[in-house]
């Protein structure tokens, strides 16, 4: 999927300023930046959920993982998956819930699940939905460290099985360092850095990696763009 010269303005605010990117297939790309850098806007452009100037080639069918699980409270875990899935994939719902560590919890309602379990249901839903690209909008943002680590490892293991293209937005350098094949840093709506990350995900969570140090330096420096 290739983005060329993408611009997006909200009234007088420029969210994206001539952003060009070529997203690799079957890889995990992390989009990082401070609040207001244009990360979520870029995700919405990829999803086709917002108008923009510029061009997008090779648009993909997308699945989603939101920051909050967005589970319907009146449906069980299994029913929440089936709510969004085409009928052809319904039979795989229970198996996928087993893969994310929720075997035996298929009939539980969201209020009977912990926060981490709810996000696991959302992860199962996102991976099971027939897609060519998975978009994740700060999916680990509101989680504690150990839960964050376990869910990142889960996403990495599911990616190993599916090998779908993933683009995820985060402001946490540790998440990007652990999970991404490639890191793109946005600052003030422009691409400030774009580089490949060494090694295969999932990488160490508690070790300070060179990638993490590099990202921290880029994000904290005042860079002339």
């Amino acid at each position, binding site marked *: 999927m290739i983005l060329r010269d993408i611009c997006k303005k909200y009234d007088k605010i420029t969210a994206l300023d001539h952003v060009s990117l070529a997203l690799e297939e079957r890889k995990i790309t992390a989009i990082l930046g401070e609040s207001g850098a244009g990360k979520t806007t870029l995700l919405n452009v990829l999803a086709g959920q917002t108008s923009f100037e510029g061009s997008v080639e090779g648009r993909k069918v997308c699945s*989603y993982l939101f920051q909050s699980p*967005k589970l*319907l*409270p*009146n449906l069980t875990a299994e*029913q929440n998956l089936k*709510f969004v899935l085409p009928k052809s994939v319904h039979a795989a719902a229970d198996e996928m819930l087993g893969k994310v560590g929720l075997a035996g919890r298929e009939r539980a309602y969201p209020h009977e699940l912990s926060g981490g379990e709810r996000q696991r249901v959302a992860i199962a839903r996102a991976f099971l939905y027939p897609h060519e690209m998975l978009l994740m909008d700060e999916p680990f943002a509101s989680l504690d460290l150990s839960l964050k680590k376990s869910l990142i490892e889960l996403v990495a293991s599911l990616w190993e099985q599916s090998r779908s293209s993933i683009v995820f937005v985060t402001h946490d350098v540790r998440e990007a360092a652990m999970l991404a094949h490639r890191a793109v840093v946005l600052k003030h709506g422009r691409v400030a850095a774009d580089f490949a990350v060494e090694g295969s995900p999932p990488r160490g969570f508690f070790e300070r990696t060179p990638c993490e140090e590099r990202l921290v330096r880029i994000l904290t420096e005042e860079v002339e763009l």
Partner: protein
Amino acid sequence: MKVAKKYQNALLSLTAIVALWLVWIAAYYIVRNDYVLPSFWDAFAEMGRILADASFWRAFWNTFLRTLWAFLASMALGIAMAVCSHLTAGLRVFFAPVISVVRTVPTMAVILMLLLWTTPSMVPVIVSALVLFPAVYAAALAALDEVGENYGELTRAFRVPLMRRIGKMYLPLAAPVMLKQAGGIFSLGLKVVISGEVLASTYRSLGGMMQDAQMYLNMPRLMALTLLVLFMGFVLEGVCYFAYRLIVRWRT
């Protein structure tokens, strides 16, 4: 602790009812005119006679059925229009002045017109449905808007089909709000039906019985019928609340 709180709330409610009863008794002794305010004991005795009268139960059943029909009609129309308004912005704008007109038109004017167009039996049903419908529409639309705000992004992202959205998301998630308000709406409907029955002189109705009592200055009977209608309203609200608890089992 929870049980103690439940008993405390029940005690407070009972205290309020006892306070109202004491106000009645005090007012009776102050007014000292049975044609203006009968004594509680006379009204209570009359209540016993009414309950033993078969014609009361016929009238009670007819009034209840009229209220039920008005309630169901207003719910069906209100919810259907609210779903259309929520899904289509143009319809929301189109319906706005219609709802405004229905809400604002004087009930008395409607009753007088309906007396010319239809039977005394239908007048209370239609007028009650018209009074309830704007309230049902507003409540349903607010509930649907809240559901849309919380889960609209999910359904747009995953392209969930319309009928599945309506059947598995919008209606089930709006239902608790509507069920919680159903008791109040039902009680209001009962009040309007009885008003309509009084004005239309509807045969075999609670409103008709009240009108007869007023015509013959039988104040104890009028008060007794009022108390019975109040009790009916409480029971209906209780039934709606029980239905809410039974149906919405997935809520914490």
